[in-house]
């Protein structure tokens, strides 16, 4: 979060040519891990993330919740996914992400419909390029739906931040590294309720409001990509 690098060009656009409120391209595909109950692959800018969902009886017995499901997301990075080789296994950052993603998904899943169950959400980041936690959550929510798990809504997320003093949508890697703030957020689109929110950096109250408005505007577009991914699958299945 250092601020001495120019991130907004003279023409007012960002280094990668995007306008302040412009997202990077997003593609989602389901049914990519044959063995799993549900799965999704998301490409969000240069991010490449694969998610697989298994639904099973929680084990051991005393870890079960007799009246609802437990949701366990595990965010994991491939060795080659980042600039410097990542050693296998969780670290403090990935453990925090696993926790907030698990909690956000728990708010969307109808937990009471799956007593004693564990919903395991395995997230593998194959290529990381800023915004992986939100891209992971957005894909996870599709993978959970693909597994047939009953959901109140499809969680959808994006990030905004501050770069060169301006509020911009969907931070790039440079903006994430050299900008002044990073605000990932996820909502349940039907109600607009926030199920994930983090912030680090330096923003005023007004800037925060501007960032959240910008994200709220973008959410429906991402939701549509999620819904299309799920429909593609079912139309294909019908068409077979």
């Amino acid at each position: 979060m250092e601020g001495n690098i120019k991130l907004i060009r003279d023409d007012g656009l960002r280094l990668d040519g995007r306008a302040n409120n412009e997202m990077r391209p997003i593609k989602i595909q389901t049914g990519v891990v044959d063995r799993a109950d549900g799965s999704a692959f998301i490409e969000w800018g240069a991010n490449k993330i694969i998610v697989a969902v298994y639904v099973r009886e929680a084990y051991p017995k005393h870890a079960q919740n007799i009246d609802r499901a437990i949701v366990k997301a595990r965010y994991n990075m491939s060795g080659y996914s980042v600039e410097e080789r990542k050693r296998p296994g969780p670290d403090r950052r990935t453990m925090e992400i696993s926790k907030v993603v698990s909690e956000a998904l728990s708010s969307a899943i109808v937990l009471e419909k799956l007593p004693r169950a564990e919903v395991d959400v395995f997230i593998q980041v194959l290529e990381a390029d800023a915004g992986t936690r939100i891209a992971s959550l957005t894909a996870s929510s599709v993978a959970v739906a693909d597994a047939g798990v009953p959901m109140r809504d499809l969680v959808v997320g994006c990030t905004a931040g501050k770069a060169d003093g301006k509020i911009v949508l969907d931070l790039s890697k440079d903006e994430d590294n050299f900008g002044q703030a990073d605000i990932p957020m996820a909502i349940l689109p039907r109600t607009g309720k926030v199920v994930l929110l983090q912030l680090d950096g330096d923003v005023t109250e007004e800037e925060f409001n501007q960032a959240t408005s910008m994200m709220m505007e973008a959410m429906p577009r991402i939701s549509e990509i999620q819904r299309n991914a799920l429909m593609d699958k079912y139309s294909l299945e019908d068409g077979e």
Partner: protein
Amino acid sequence: MVNKMPMDASAVLSEIRKGFILESIKTGKRLDGRRLDDYREIKITENFVPKAAGSAMVEIGKTKVVAGIKVEEGDPFEDSPDSGVMALNIELLPMAFPTFESGPPSEQAIEYSRVVDRGIRESKMIDTSKLVIESGKRVWMIFVDIDVLNYDGNIIDAATLAAVTALKNTVVPASKIGQKDYALPVNATPVSVTMVKIGDELVCDPDLEEEQVSNGRITVTISEDHNIHAMQKGDIGEFSLDEIRKAIKTSSNIGNKLRETYLR
């Protein structure tokens, strides 16, 4: 005695007790008589561990934490040769609560640590540029260790208060390398305010029972520059944007009061 389980172990509150808490909060009062944005009594003991470079014990109600600082020589990160290093760690000691376990830190301990760390780091409280011994080669490393000795809710705020207090009384032991000891250069005084949602209300400084009946937690860390430096929505639950905005305003007001009362 053997079968006696603490009332609130494994997060099990009786339904009756839950009902009491919820009913009370609807009326704007909490079971212990506090209003929704009141903190419990706060007690700070500075320099609790004189041999540390800085330290403080903080009690918020029955929640009790100790922060201690060690300042040691070390290598800078490759991409910031002219900057000292801070590492912050919260230990949820098994003595503090029946379900806390020994061993590597839990997801909960890590989340708490990272939220407290971000508030301090992003407010630029520590002037890390003044912690360089030799550019690119040798810097001072600030280890902030926070031990939770007794858990009765709201660890994040207790830990932030303890860490900030301890950092403010920290001395860099430069005499070890033939220079003069100096007070750790501090530029800001971040304060975190944590609220939980109970029913439709935001409740500040929850105790453990309140945490157990709540649906979602939100922390906002603001410095004297009035800017937001860290936010974290935690636990299962959801907030409307309006609630989040309200949480920011509350944090701003209450945080200012805490800073003036406890961190001058």
